[in-house]
């Protein structure tokens, strides 16, 4: 994969706070890349440096192999879709979309043709003459997208693109954004704090923490093989059982000795946490091999799934299990029910940090 965007050792501080700390990453051509992280992790600062609105204190930013660190924002073949959309309120939808092309000197029939084409792409042709104030949130989002796409940038940056939309529309737009990225062949770099959004849309995700990359990889890798407790906790839901590596496995005091997918990576005697996804836990009414006795402490009904809060023996920790609605146990389990739970060793991980 040839790198389109290269961020090389970039740092940026605001006063004593390092927003981005010696960060490097590469984004390939035609990739859908997500910068994911909690608020204050530096993802927006990094995005603004790539767009050209902030200058890095250190490091370089390259686009297509060319150093653009010192290039002004209006000269970069990069466009940004703002979180607030930042539509020009005094211009119509078509006027907003045409603006960027007019700045390039595109005029007349060519201008009209390209504006019409991109409005068609985002299904806004009917609203071309409206002003932004007359549009719904979802329509504004499409205008913002069209305005950036019409310039045919090498790289499109999207700052929390779906943050202002309601849940239903957000899910619909996740698929829509993915479609647009594939149809246009433009590289998308999305900033989001929503792990579900990143998992759904991105080809690769960089999870940021305190200005550094906590983990970079494909969604599946981040979800199934998190490298640290932070990653495991941030992406999806995770149960942690503290313990230590012993001769024949990982011992959780009071519960027993367990196996794990990465057991061999942990040196003997080392402390760590056994990490377990809620949906990997099997819950049954009758005892099965390797099962632990548990009491149902609480339940949450989600429609397709049932969330069970399980107390294991005298453990202070509550184990969260996610049971599919098709499981017969969901129909007669209740608070206080005695159940048995277990998990395959291959679906648990030991995380030492």
């Amino acid at each position: 994969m040839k790198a389109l965007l290269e961020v090389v050792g970039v740092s940026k501080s605001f006063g004593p706070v390092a927003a981005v700390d010696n960060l490097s990453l590469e984004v390939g051509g035609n990739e859908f890349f997500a910068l994911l992280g909690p608020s204050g992790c530096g993802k927006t600062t990094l995005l603004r440096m790539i767009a050209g609105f902030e200058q890095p204190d250190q490091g370089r930013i390259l686009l297509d192999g060319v150093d653009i660190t010192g290039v002004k924002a209006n000269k970069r073949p990069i466009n940004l879709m703002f979180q607030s959309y930042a539509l020009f309120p005094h211009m119509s939808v078509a006027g907003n979309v045409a603006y960027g092309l007019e700045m390039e000197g595109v005029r007349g029939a060519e201008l009209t043709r390209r504006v019409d084409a991109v409005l068609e792409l985002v299904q806004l042709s009917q609203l071309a003459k409206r002003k932004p104030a007359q549009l719904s949130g979802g329509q504004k989002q499409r205008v913002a997208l069209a305005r950036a796409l019409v310039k045919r940038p090498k790289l499109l940056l999207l700052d929390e693109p779906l943050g202002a939309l309601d849940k239903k529309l957000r899910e619909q737009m996740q698929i829509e954004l993915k479609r647009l990225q594939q149809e246009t062949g433009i590289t998308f770099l999305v900033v989001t704090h929503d792990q579900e959004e990143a998992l759904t849309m991105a080809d690769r995700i960089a999870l940021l923490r305190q200005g550094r990359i906590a983990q970079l990889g494909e969604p599946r890798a981040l979800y199934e093989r998190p490298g640290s407790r932070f990653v495991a906790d941030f992406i999806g839901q995770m149960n942690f059982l503290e313990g230590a590596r012993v001769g024949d496995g990982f011992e959780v005091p009071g519960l027993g000795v367990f196996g794990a997918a990465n057991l061999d990576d942990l040196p003997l005697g080392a402390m760590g946490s056994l990490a377990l996804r809620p949906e990997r836990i099997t819950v049954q009414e009758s005892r099965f091999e390797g099962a632990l006795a548990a009491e149902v402490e609480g339940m949450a009904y989600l429609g397709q799934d049932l969330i069970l809060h399980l107390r294991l023996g005298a453990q202070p920790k509550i184990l969260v299990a996610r049971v599919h609605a098709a499981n017969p146990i969901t129909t007669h389990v209740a608070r206080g029910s005695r159940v048995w739970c277990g998990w395959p060793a291959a679906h648990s991980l030991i995380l030492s940090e």
Partner: protein
Amino acid sequence: MVVSRRIVLTGPGIAWIMALLVIPCALLLVNSFFERGIYGGIDYIFTFENYARAIDPLYGEIFWNSARVAGITTLISLALGYPAAYCIALSPKRRQMALLILVMLPLWSNYLIRTYAWMVLLNGEGLINRSLIGLGLIEAPLPLLYNDFAIITGLTYAYVPFMILALFSSISKLAPELREASTDLGASPLMTFWRVTFPLTLPGIAAGCVFVFVLSIGNFVTPDLLGGGKRTMIGNLIYDQFLTARDWPFGSAIAAIVIFIMMALLTLQAVLINRRDRDEKTV
């Protein structure tokens, strides 16, 4: 209950405006349709004569001259005020208040004193002429005082703070993302100003211009002191009709015309702002 609270809250203000603004203006309007008494009083005989006189070319020139001076003052105030207001609006929040207080500081001293200070500066023997002669740049003093230049300088000095305040409130309301979006789409700083900042701050420009124009065209102290009373402006004309010529009906007619012009301008500005607000309501 809501209605009674409304009356309690707005009543004093409305009563104040009625007693001291609306009723006097109405009296003025009424007086402008009567004849002047022989000894300076008002004879209550209905006539349009005062208005017929007001459109006499002699007074037309005074109207025109006042509008010209006020117009030039407005344009200079806009040219000086916009960059200042822009800088204040873009400076860090904690510094904005200090800068705005500096802008308003001159308003804390008496208007007459400030006007006299300009006479000291612009005088033939004043600071500016003496400094220029001292530096050897000119030989004879420049005619800086008692002309339109002096009037416009004095008016601009006096009213530029109002322009800055009006522009500041408009510019600071503009989301910084709009300028960034324009830059991001390839616009130069100048193009961003022309296509985004300027059109979106038109309501502030209109408000500032109406302020300065209305205040300038009605001013009679500055034309009197800095203009030397030679070039009569509309304010001076009204002043003279009431206090020197004792022709209250004619003075009232001219005052009514000026009020009408000002109201037309304010209405125009309000319409502009309303239209703009409707566009930006949900942005």
